[in-house]
C-alpha cells in the first residue's frame, strides 16, 4: 500500500490566515481567563493586533505567486490584494464593533440567551457591558474570508464559506436594542444562507461528476476538453454560482439583504457590507476567471441578465425605502450589480477595476453606517427617514459628511463613487459588454435620486420635534469616519495609484 504523503505546505503564504485563526482561538481563551472588566480592552487590542499582524504578513508576502497544500490554496496577486483589502476594511469594522462610548455598554447585547422582552432583558439593556465574544467571532469570520478568496478548490471554498458565514449569523443576532428584529434577521440569514450553501455544495458534486476533480485548474482542463456530459457542467456551474451570488447579494438571491442589514447591529451590517462583499466577489472572480473561463460565452449572458436585474431591483426599490438601513441595503444590492458588470468584462481590466470598486465602496459604506450608528433617540438608532429631517441644522458637520458619502454613492464626480463606476464600466466596454454598461448608466442615474432625496431632507427640511440628538462620536468612530471620507476623496481625485496596484495584482495563477 502506498504511503499517504503529506503535501508540501508553504507556511509563509498561509501566515495571514494562520495568524487570524490563532488569534481567534486565543480570543476564546481570553473569555475564560481574563476578568470581565478588562475583557473588552484585551479582546479589542488582540483582534486589532492580529489584523495588523496579518496585514503585515500579506505585505511581506506581496511577491508570492504559488499554489500550496496540495492545490487547496492559491496565493497570487488577486488573493493578496483582496486579503489586504479584507484586512484593512475588517480592521476598520472592528473599530466600529469596539465602539463603546455611544451607548452604555456598546451596541451588543450582554447575554444573548436572555429572552427578549423579559425583565432580565430590560436590566441588561440598561447598560451591562456587551458581550466580548463578538471579537473572536469577527476574527474567525475575517480568517474565513481570507481563505475564501484564496481557495483554489471548490471544497476548500465551501469550508471557507461556512467558516466565515457561521460567525456572521451569530453576530447578526447580538443587537442590544430591538432584539426581536435582530434575532429574526439572524435566523433568516442563517436559514437562507444554509439553503444557498446547499446549492453550492450540490453544484460542487455536479462539477466533480463532470471534471473528476474539484481543483479549479482541473475543472479548467475538463472544460477545455470535456470528457463527460456538459449537462453536468452547466447544472454544476449554475448551482455553484447561486451559492456565490447569494453571498454577493445579487437578485433574485438578494432577498435576505434588506432584512438582515436592518436587523443586525449596525457595526455588523457595516462589516458585512464592506468585507463580505469583497470576499464574495473575490471568490466569484476566481471561480469564473480560473475554472470556467472556457465557457465564458455561455455564462456571460445569464450572469449579465442577473446583473441587469440586480441593478434595477436595487435602484428602483431604493427609491421606495423609508428606513435608512434598508435604503443602504438596496443600494448595496445595486452596487453588487455594478460589480458584476466589472466581473463580466472577463479581462484583466475587469479584474482590476472590480477590485478597485470593492475597496472604494467598502470605505464609503463603512463611513455611512458609522454615521447611522450616531443618530439616536431613546429607542436606539433612529433609522427612519422622517427622523433625519433637518438634521443638517442640528449637526452640520455630521450631515455634511453623510452628504458627501451619499454623493459618492450617487457617483458624483470627484468622489470614489464616480471613479469606481467609471472603471468597471470602462472595463466592461473593453470586454465587449456595452449593453451592461448602458443598463448600468441608466440605473445609476435612477439610484442617485434616493440619495439626493436624503440630502435634501437633511439640509432643506425643518427639524421636527422628533429629530433625534446626534451622539458625539468616540475616538474609534471618529477615526472610521475620517478614514472613510479621506479614502473616498482620495480615490475620487487621484485614483491612479490604487488602480495601478490593482493592475499589477490582476493575474490569477492556475
Amino acid at each position, binding site marked *: 500500500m502506498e504511503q499517504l504523503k503529506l503535501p508540501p505546505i508553504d507556511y509563509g503564504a498561509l501566515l495571514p490566515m494562520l495568524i487570524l485563526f490563532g488569534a481567534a482561538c486565543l480570543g476564546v481563551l481570553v473569555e475564560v481567563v481574563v476578568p470581565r472588566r478588562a475583557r473588552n480592552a484585551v479582546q479589542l487590542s488582540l483582534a486589532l493586533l492580529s489584523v495588523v499582524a496579518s496585514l503585515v504578513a500579506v505585505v511581506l508576502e506581496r511577491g508570492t505567486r504559488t499554489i500550496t497544500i496540495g492545490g487547496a490554496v492559491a496565493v497570487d496577486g488577486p488573493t493578496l490584494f483582496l486579503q489586504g483589502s479584507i484586512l484593512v476594511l475588517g480592521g476598520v469594522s472592528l473599530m466600529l464593533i469596539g465602539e463603546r462610548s455611544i451607548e452604555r455598554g456598546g451596541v451588543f447585547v450582554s447575554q444573548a440567551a436572555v429572552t427578549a422582552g423579559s425583565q432580565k432583558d430590560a436590566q441588561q439593556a440598561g447598560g451591562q457591558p456587551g458581550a466580548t465574544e463578538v471579537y473572536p467571532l469577527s476574527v474567525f469570520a475575517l480568517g474565513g474570508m481570507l481563505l475564501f478568496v484564496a481557495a483554489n478548490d471548490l471544497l476548500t471554498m465551501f469550508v471557507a464559506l461556512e467558516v466565515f458565514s457561521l460567525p456572521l449569523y451569530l453576530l447578526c443576532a447580538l443587537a442590544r436594542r*430591538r432584539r*426581536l428584529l435582530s434575532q*429574526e*434577521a439572524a*435566523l*433568516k440569514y442563517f436559514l*437562507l444562507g444554509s*439553503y444557498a450553501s446547499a*446549492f453550492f455544495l450540490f453544484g460542487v458534486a455536479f462539477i466533480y461528476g463532470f471534471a473528476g476533480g474539484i481543483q479549479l485548474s482541473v475543472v479548467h482542463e475538463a472544460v477545455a476538453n470535456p470528457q463527460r456530459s*456538459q*449537462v453536468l*457542467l*452547466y*447544472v454544476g456551474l*449554475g*448551482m455553484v454560482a*447561486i451559492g456565490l451570488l447569494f453571498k454577493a447579494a445579487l*437578485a*433574485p*438571491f438578494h*432577498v*435576505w439583504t434588506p*432584512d438582515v442589514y*436592518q436587523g443586525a447591529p449596525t457595526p455588523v451590517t457595516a462589516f458585512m457590507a464592506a468585507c463580505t462583499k469583497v470576499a464574495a466577489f473575490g471568490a466569484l472572480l476566481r471561480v469564473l476567471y480560473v475554472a470556467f473561463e472556457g465557457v465564458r460565452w*455561455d*455564462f456571460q*449572458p*445569464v450572469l449579465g441578465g*442577473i446583473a441587469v436585474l440586480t441593478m*434595477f*431591483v436595487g435602484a*428602483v*426599490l431604493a427609491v*421606495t425605502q423609508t428606513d435608512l438601513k434598508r435604503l443602504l441595503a438596496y443600494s448595496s444590492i445595486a452596487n453588487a450589480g455594478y460589480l458584476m458588470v466589472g466581473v463580466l468584462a472577463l*479581462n484583466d*481590466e475587469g479584474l482590476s*477595476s472590480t477590485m478597485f470598486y470593492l475597496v472604494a465602496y467598502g470605505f464609503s459604506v463603512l463611513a455611512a453606517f458609522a454615521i447611522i450608528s450616531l443618530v439616536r433617540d431613546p429607542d436606539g438608532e433612529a433609522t427612519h427617514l422622517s427622523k433625519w429631517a433637518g438634521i443638517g441644522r442640528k449637526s*452640520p458637520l455630521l450631515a*455634511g459628511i453623510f452628504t458627501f458619502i451619499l454623493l459618492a454613492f450617487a457617483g458624483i*464626480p*470627484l468622489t470614489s463613487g464616480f*471613479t469606481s463606476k*467609471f*472603471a468597471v464600466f*470602462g472595463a466592461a*466596454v*473593453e470586454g465587449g459588454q*456595452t449593453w451592461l*454598461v*448602458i443598463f448600468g448608466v441608466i440605473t445609476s*442615474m435612477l439610484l*442617485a*435620486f434616493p440619495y439626493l432625496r436624503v440630502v*435634501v431632507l437633511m*439640509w*432643506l427640511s*425643518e427639524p421636527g420635534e422628533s429629530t433625534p440628538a446626534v451622539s458625539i462620536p468616540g475616538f474609534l468612530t471618529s477615526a472610521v469616519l475620517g478614514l472613510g471620507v479621506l479614502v473616498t476623496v482620495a480615490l475620487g481625485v487621484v*485614483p*491612479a495609484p490604487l*488602480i495601478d496596484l490593482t493592475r499589477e495584482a490582476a493575474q490569477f495563477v492556475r
Partner: protein
Amino acid sequence: MEHTFAPATGVLSNIWLLVAIPLASATILLLLGKRADRWGHWLGVASVAASFVLGLIFFLNLSGLDAAKRSAELSLWDFIVVGDLKVDFGLLFDPLAGVFVLLITGVGSLIHLYAVGYMEHDPGRRKFFAYFNLFVSAMLLLVLGNNYVMLYFGWEGVGLASYLLISFWYTRPSAATAGKKAFLMNRVGDAGLAIGIFLMFTELGTTQYDGVFNGVDKLAAGTVLAMGILLLLGACGKSGQFPLQAWLPDAMEGPTPVSALIHAATMVTAGVYLIARSNPIFSANETLQLIVVSIGAVTLLMGCLIGAAKDDIKRVLAWSTVSQIGYMFLGVGLGGGAYALAIVHLLAHGFFKANMFLGAGSVMHGMHDQVDIRRFGGLSKHMKITWLTFGTGWLAIIGIPPLSGFFSKEPIIAAAFEGEGWQPWVFGGAALLGAGLTGFYMTRLFVLTFHGPARWTEDNKHPHESPAIMTIPLILLAIGSVAAGGLMASTVPDWLTPVLGEHGEEHATVLPHVVLQILGIVIPVIGAGLAWALFRNGTALEPEPAGVLVTAARRNLYTDAFNEAVFERPGVYLTRALVFLDNKGIDGVVNGIAAGIGGGSGRLRRLQTGFVRSYALSMLTGAMLVVGAFLAIQLGWLA
C-alpha cells in the same frame, strides 16, 4: 481639419484658478457654517469677481497669441487609466471656452451682487451663496475641460447645484416637486451623455477633444449618428429643449437670482456649448444636423406659444428662454457659419435675459412677491429704473435695431433660409413666425406689467423701487442688452474661427437678403403692435375661457399630460410591481391563504414584512431560472 491644442504656457498655465477660487469660497462658506453668516455673501461675490478679472487677463493673453495657436491646454494629472483609456484631468482655454468664461463670471458677478440685496432677509443667505459659488465653479469646469469626462464632471456639478438651488425654498411643496422634476428630466439627458461618452470610448478609445474630433472621420455614419443623438439627448435635457423641456419653467420656483444665472444665462446654454464644442461630430452627419434643427424649430415655436398664454411673470420669461435656446439650437444645427451665430445669440441672450429676470425679481421685490402679471400694471411710474432696464431687455429680445437681439437673432433667421428644397422654407418660416410671436408675448408681458391701469391686490398699495445694490446690476446689464449684440456680431465669429471652423462661402438664401432683413424687423413689430393694442388697457383679473389654442398653450401644449401618461405612470407601475414581487408576490400566490388564517398573533409581532419561506421560494425560482438558462444555452435553445 487636424485638431491640436497648444500646451498652456506663461500666465495661461494658471487657468485652474478660475475653477478653484469659487470652489474654495463655497467650501469655506459651507465649512464655517453660521460663523460666516455676517460676511459670507461678500466672499461669494468677491470670488466670482476675482474669477472674472482672471478670466479677462487670460482672455487678453489668449488674444495676443497667433490665431493658429490660440489655445492653452493644461494637463493637471492622469485621472483614470482603464485599459487603453486614459482620462486626463485637464483644462483647455481656447476662444470658445474664453467667451463662456467671460459670460459666466461677468454676468455671474452682477447676479451675485444683486443677490446680496435680493436675499437680504433670507436666513439661509450664506448657504445660498455657497451653492451659488459651487454652481459657478462647476459651470466653469464644464466649459474648461479638455475632454468629455471633465465636461461630464461639470455637467453633473451644475445639475446638483441647480437641484439644490431650485429646492432652496423647501417650505413650498411646489419647489420640492419642481426640484424633483428638474432632477429626473436632467437625469434622462445625463444618461444619454454618459452612454455617448462610453460609445466614444468604445469606438475611438479616447475622450479627449482632439482625439475624438480627429477620429470622427474614420467612423461609420451610423456610429456618428448614434453618438450625436446621445450627446443631443444630454444637450436637450440640460437646455430644456423638446422633448425634455418641461422642467425648466417649473425650475422658476427657486430664488430669482437662480433663475437669472442658472436657468437663463448660463447652465441652460450648456447644451448649446456641448453641440458647438462637438461641432466636428455634428457637422459629420447631415441627418444629425437635421434632427438638431428640427428640435430647435419645434422648441422655439412651442416656447413662444406657451409663453404667450402664461400669467406668471417668471414663467413667461422661462418659456421665452426655452424658445430663445431653440433659436440657438437652430443655429448650431444649421452648421457651418451658423455655429458662431448661435454663440453670439447665446452671449447676447445671457445679458438681456438676465437683465429681464433680475427686473422681474425687482418687480416682485416691490410687490410682495406677487408674480401674476394680471395683478401688475402701471408700475412704470413707481419703478423707473426697473421699467427702463426691463424696457431695453424687451426691445432687445424682440430684435429692434440697434439693440442686441437684432444683431444676434436676425442672422440666424437669415441662415435658416439658406439652402434648397423644403427645408429653408420650413425652418426659416418657423424662425420668422417665432420672431413675430416673441414680439407678441414679450410686449404682452411688458405692457401688462408696467403700463395700463393698476390692477394690484389689496396688500400691494405701495410699490417701491429696489435698493441700489439691485438696480446697479440692472443698469449694467441693460447697457449690455443695448450694446453687446452689435459689438459681438462683428467680432465674435472671427474670434471663434479656430474652434468652429471657417465660415465657408455664403450660401444663397431662398429670399433676397434685404427682404429677409425687412421681414425680420416688420414681423416682430406687427406682433408687438398687436399685443400693445390688445393689452394697452389691461386685462381681466382672472384667466377667462378661451379657444382651443390658448387652452392648450395654458396647459403647456399637453406635454405634461403626455409625460405623465407615457413615463410617470409606467414608472409608478414598475416600481409597484417590483415592490410587490419583492415583498409579497410569491408569498401572496403560494402562502397567502395560509398566512391569512394562521398568522394571527404572530402577524402582530412580526417586525419585518417578509416571510423566510417566501424568500426561499423566490430563491428557488431564481435558481431554476439560472440553471434552466444554462441548460437552454447548452442545448442550443438560446443561441
